């Protein structure tokens, strides 16, 4: 009996083996882990690197996160518009100015649309721009340090949403207003909106060498909502396209009142023409208050400047510069294909996509085939500019990206899907569900002349059951699809931080080789830096005490300080003397009313401490820097305000 059982068991074993073998050879899509081809496609082995960087906007986190594709691993959160205690951004004396605005210090924003700088219509990987939606700002982030280098506030704007997209050679980064407002701002009844409120479209020049931004001009448009925008490219280079809604100019219950018109517009702006006009002295300089913040990599410091004037342009003063293209059903996304020929308006309340033709538009303009005007701006005839309609059968189209092989991919929010269709024939090729309610989508380079059409990332608004539940609040889900074949294939699903709206992707080989590893100590021009430990010292200027401190594994110089008094303003200026990759030191002081500092090799950062209590108070390094990290600490003696103890400092008794 026993033997018989054993025999059965081994037969059974053989059958199982046979079965599992069969599965390996056959259809393995739904099989677990490493057997599935989808798993292999997203698997990046330990120590190996991803093929693409993906930069996801942080939405209400105000920041920008960096992911790898295809693995979906998160590498970094770059603080942009929000204070970030992890590094001390927005808390350190050097970076507080980055968050200054004309409204004072604003430590948060809502970041939406990252866009990578371009040269000749292709990603050049120098900078990435992103908009602050709430208190209108545009930020520029270096793609060598992955740090925010510059933030400029946008006056006359509100709900900075149709932003921050760049032109083909990064001549301009564009910031369009979502809300129309009184320009200039003034005290007036809200229900007098119609005809009185206006919308500013700002063109911010980008210095080709340093990337520094400056508002070149603002086009003051009718009081619509300017929703999204994209640049012309190739043949349409020199033009910019903005979707509009609320052409009804409703000031209340927009949910209903802004959806009355069957068609709103895409505003086509010939910015080259406007540029020419202002270069010849056109436009009106008007008083304004907006702040320009610049971080200098050599001084490790940001400065804020209040600007007092902005150049505005009335579109009616430049004939031929601005036209309206009627587009059905409150269009949201406004996307331009890699050739620059097609402008796609996704009417978010429609099932169909409207594709305008740039050639048709030019012909209609030349033939002066107008269908009326809005506030003096000519409206082109819908039928004259239309190239085609994509009858997708989906609901709630939002955004379109391109693969560079003649295909377009559009997200549908209401029907939760991505639809692949063909440019020119408008036929639907494939559709795949998303989980759930997709907003933007991203193909690396998908908003340029040269997309890298291998992966598509769908950025969803709703997560629900995709991951283990973590209470009512969850991270958003993203899905990555393989788009190298005729049909899309869902590969992987990963959570993203904050609420990603748009994203931008770029091949790793364009960024990785020039990523900075350390700041060189001999290039450190911070006014409070100590470049050798013998310069470490403590100075008093009235109630201010400046501690010039250096760090290296694993001590602070000095680490014993006496002579500080209650009521002093104590500034720690700490220079990290390491010159090796990935050896930051941290700094934290007990009871300090601010965050820690995280100081990169060769960098100087400053932190303010206002001691309120007499005693001997410790500080320490917060970053596990070496085997002796727990020894990396020091003390400050705080004496009563009327004490006459002299300032003194030491390390190891010296």
């Amino acid at each position, binding site marked *: 009996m026993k033997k018989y059982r054993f*025999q059965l068991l081994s037969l059974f074993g053989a059958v199982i083996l046979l079965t599992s073998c069969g599965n390996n050879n056959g259809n393995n899509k739904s099989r677990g882990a490493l057997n599935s081809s989808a798993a292999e496609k997203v698997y990046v082995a330990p120590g190996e690197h991803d093929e693409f960087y993906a930069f996801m906007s942080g939405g209400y986190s105000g920041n920008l996160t960096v992911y790898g594709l295809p693995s979906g691993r998160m590498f970094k959160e770059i603080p942009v518009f929000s204070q970030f205690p992890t590094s001390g951004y927005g808390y350190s004396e050097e970076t507080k100015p980055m968050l200054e605005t004309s409204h004072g210090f604003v430590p948060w924003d809502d970041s939406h649309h990252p866009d990578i700088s371009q040269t000749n219509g292709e990603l050049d990987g120098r900078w990435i721009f992103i908009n602050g939606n709430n208190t209108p700002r545009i930020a520029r982030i270096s793609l060598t340090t992955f740090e925010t280098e510059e933030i400029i506030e946008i006056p006359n704007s509100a709900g900075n949403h149709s932003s921050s997209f760049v032109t083909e050679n990064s001549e301009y980064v564009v910031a369009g207003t979502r809300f129309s407002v009184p320009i200039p701002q003034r005290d007036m009844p809200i229900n007098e909106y119609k005809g009185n409120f206006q919308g500013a479209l700002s063109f911010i020049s980008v210095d080709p060498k340093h990337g520094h931004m400056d508002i070149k001009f603002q086009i003051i448009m009718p009081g619509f909502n300017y929703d999204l925008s994209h640049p012309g490219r190739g043949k349409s280079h020199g033009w910019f396209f903005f979707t509009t809604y609320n052409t009804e100019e409703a000031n209340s219950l927009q949910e209903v009142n802004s959806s009355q018109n069957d068609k709103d517009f895409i505003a086509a702006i010939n910015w080259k023409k406007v540029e020419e006009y202002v270069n010849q002295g056109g436009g009106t300089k008007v008083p304004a208050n907006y702040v320009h913040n610049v971080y200098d990599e050599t001084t490790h410091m940001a400065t804020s400047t209040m600007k007092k004037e902005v150049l505005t342009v009335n579109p009616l003063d430049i004939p031929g510069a601005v036209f309206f293209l009627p587009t059905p059903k409150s269009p949201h996304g406004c996307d331009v294909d890699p050739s620059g020929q097609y402008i796609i308006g996704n009417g978010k309340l429609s099932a169909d996509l409207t594709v305008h033709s740039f050639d048709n538009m030019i012909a209609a303009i030349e033939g002066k085939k107008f269908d009326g005007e809005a506030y003096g701006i000519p409206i082109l005839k819908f039928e004259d500019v239309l190239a085609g309609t994509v009858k997708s059968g989906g609901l709630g189209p939002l955004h379109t990206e391109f693969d560079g092989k003649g295909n377009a991919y559009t997200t549908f929010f209401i029907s939760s899907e991505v639809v692949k269709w063909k440019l020119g024939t408008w036929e639907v090729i494939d559709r795949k569900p998303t989980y759930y309610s997709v907003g933007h989508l991203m193909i690396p380079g998908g908003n340029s002349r040269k997309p890298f059409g291998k992966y598509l990332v769908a950025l969803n608004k709703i997560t629900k059951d995709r991951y283990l539940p973590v209470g009512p609040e969850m991270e958003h889900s993203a899905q990555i699809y393989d788009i190298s074949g005729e049909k899309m294939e869902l590969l992987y699903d990963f959570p993203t931080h904050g609420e990603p709206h748009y994203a931008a992707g770029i091949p790793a080989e364009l960024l990785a080789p020039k990523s900075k590893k350390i700041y060189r100590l001999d290039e450190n021009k911070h006014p409070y830096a100590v470049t*050798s430990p013998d310069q470490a010292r403590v100075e008093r200027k009235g109630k201010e005490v400046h501690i010039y401190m250096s760090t290296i594994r694993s001590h602070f110089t000095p680490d014993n300080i006496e002579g500080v008094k209650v009521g002093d303003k104590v500034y720690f200026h700490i220079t990290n003397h390491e010159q090796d990759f990935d050896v930051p030191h941290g700094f934290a002081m007990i009871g300090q009313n601010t965050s820690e500092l995280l100081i990169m090799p060769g960098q100087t950062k400053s932190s303010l401490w206002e001691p309120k209590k007499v005693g001997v108070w410790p500080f320490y390094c917060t970053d596990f820097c070496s085997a002796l990290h727990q020894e990396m600490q020091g003390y400050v003696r705080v004496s009563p305000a009327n004490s006459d103890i002299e300032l003194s400092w030491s390390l190891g008794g010296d």
Partner: protein
Amino acid sequence: MNAIIKLTLLLAAVLLLSCGEKKEKHKIQIFQKPKVEKKVAAPVSNEVPASKRITLDNKGVGKVKNLKLEPTIDNKMATRGAEIFKTNCTACHKTNKRFIGPNPTGILKRRSPEWVMNMILDPKLMTEEDQCAKDLLVEFNGAAMANQNLTEEQARDILEYFRTLK
């Protein structure tokens, strides 16, 4: 009876093998090549601490293989070296006493010029593969020497500066 069991087991084994072979084609490289650990078998002398030990024949591990010092000190190099030393090294090394790390005064009486250069240029490699550097790390309390990313030229200038220390 036994024969049947054997046959079944054999069949199972064959299937396993063939499965394995098929898998091979789609095999994903999960494991990286194991790092070849060089075992340095030199006996540790407990009598003389590493800092006092004389190891002039040992050139250490690293890119500096052979270095011949000129009989006279090059003052220009030494001056440059002193400057680089001040910025990059004095947080841990003092020239009048033992500090976080050893005092470099008289170092060339104990160590070869190559060893000193290699220690400056790649302290991590040295503490992994050079017995003397390993023992020094232990003797100095586990305070690992920082790689300051100096060029070979800069390290050479520091070496020249060390020659002036008396």
